[in-house]
């Protein structure tokens, strides 16, 4: 899932760099705040562990094998912010030294795998760590993290004008779904043996907060990335998306490939109105999610 350079359109890699850079800086600040100095070597050495663990083949029968990606496992052991930093470090090394993923596409790869993938792997675990479904939380974490990465990666490629036929897209989705199940299974079993060795390694996050909110966030991440993929593979859906974000009005020439038939001469007032409408919709949906989560958690604790 490492995207090389030459695939993404300039607004896509540029925009995702602009999103990833502050996200990584924020994660660095958050981990500086929550960790002491002894955690810096821990993050580095566990990063080396993930790098090496990605080379272990997990036999799946019939001569096939899969391997760990590690985002969800790191999030469960180090916490989300340090896990984002470690995954970013791994991706940077892979891109620089192994030419696995491009340097300009690093922003996109960091966004998919280090930021979105890690958070999607963390939220289910955070929601279920204190309950009977602890193991299931780990499995779901691994599953969601791979799924979100895959959806985002495919969506970015197709927004950039890489055309998949429906067969290729279906095949890719099936492969990614299998990979997601494998990642979930590996994460859950490895974490299970770690817990048997020393219970302190898996950080059980304080479940005082709103576990259901975390679960809803994970759901939202999966749904949003799937929606993005769906929207990006259908031209009319993409037009809607572009109108929603007001992207099309600004980036006419660079967005040429998928937006060729989109009328760019939108008068300013019209797209501002549409963007405002879209933004209002988003805010309303977010408010509904939070409200629902509040209600759920109150209902659960009652």
């Amino acid at each position, binding site marked *: 899932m490492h995207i*090389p*350079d*030459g*695939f993404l359109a*300039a607004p896509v890699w540029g925009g995702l760099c602009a999103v990833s850079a502050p996200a990584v*800086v924020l994660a*660095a*600040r958050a*981990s*500086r705040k929550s960790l002491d*100095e*002894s955690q*810096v*070597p*821990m*993050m*580095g*050495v*566990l*990063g*080396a*562990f993930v*790098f*090496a*663990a990605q*080379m*272990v*083949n*997990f*036999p*799946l029968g019939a001569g096939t094998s899969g391997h*760990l990606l590690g985002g969800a496992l790191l999030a469960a*052991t180090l916490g989300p912010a340090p896990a984002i*930093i*470690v995954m970013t*470090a*791994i991706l*940077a*090394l892979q*891109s*620089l*030294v*192994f*030419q696995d993923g*491009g*340097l*300009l596409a690093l922003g996109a790869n960091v966004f998919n795998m280090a930021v979105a993938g890690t958070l999607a792997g963390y939220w289910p675990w955070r929601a279920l760590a204190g309950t009977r479904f602890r193991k299931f939380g780990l499995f779901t974490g691994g599953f969601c993290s791979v799924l979100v990465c895959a959806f985002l990666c495919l969506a970015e*490629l197709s927004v950039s004008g*890489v*055309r998949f*036929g429906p067969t290729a897209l279906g095949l890719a989705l099936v492969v990614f779904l299998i990979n997601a199940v494998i990642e979930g299974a*590996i994460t859950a*079993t*490895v974490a299970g*043996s*770690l817990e048997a*060795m*020393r219970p302190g*390694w898996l950080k059980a996050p304080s479940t005082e907060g709103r576990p259901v909110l975390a679960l809803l966030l994970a759901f939202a991440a999966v749904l949003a990335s799937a929606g993005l993929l769906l929207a990006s593979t259908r031209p009319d859906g993409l037009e809607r998306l572009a109108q929603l974000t007001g992207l099309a009005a600004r980036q006419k020439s*660079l967005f040429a490939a998928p937006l060729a038939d989109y009328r760019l001469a939108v008068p300013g007032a019209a797209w501002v109105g549409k963007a405002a409408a879209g933004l209002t919709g988003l805010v309303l949906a977010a408010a509904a999610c939070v409200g629902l989560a509040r209600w759920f958690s109150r209902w659960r604790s009652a």
Partner: protein
Amino acid sequence: MNRGPLSSIRKLEDWSRSGSWLHRRDPRAKLLSAFCVLVAIAVMPARGTLSLCLGVLAATAILAAGAIVARLPVFSILARGWVVLPFTGVFALLAWVEGNPHRAVSLLSKSWLSAVAVVLLMASTPLERLLAGLEKLGVPPLLVSVVQFVWRYLHVSIAQLDRMRIARAARGGERKFVFATSTVAVLFASSAARAERVHWALLSRGGESHFPLLDPLRIDRLDYALLASALLAAALLVVSGGLR
């Protein structure tokens, strides 16, 4: 489990330690120059066959010139770019099958050229100097430290994995999912223990988790010259790729 990636990066490491004109330039200047060339390759329009050929030829020539200035083996540098082939090849094939050979060739050549540009950057800059340059350019110090630790202990972890594989094979180990799981879990446990020892070692030296450079970075006029020529090369690329 294989040693393929490590033996191939050893060459990159060797290359990065020689002392040519390009090697002696400040890593910040080299990073920004590589960035300019990468952006030029990425935005090079190359709509027609002629402009695509011209653009690719110009970019190849520029990168080869860089390798010659760095006194590196030109063909090995250009050949290393082909590691992107597995990913790119699939998409190029898809585009070709859909009846768009121009797009297929453009995808292949652009991702190859970008990879060669990164190889040239890494072959002319030792990793620790590059990271120091990145930190000066505003990358969070925590991220830089973590990258350095990952790079330092990657080889240790992989060597341990190899020893574990040999030990299991010597005891007639089977290929089973459970065994792979316990291998990974034990690797995690010993990595955590190693991290603790590393922390103690750092404490014994005064508690600095930062890697100092032997000779500090400094920018001089030649670095600006490098940056200027990279900008010129980037402009040349965009122009030659934009011809009709």
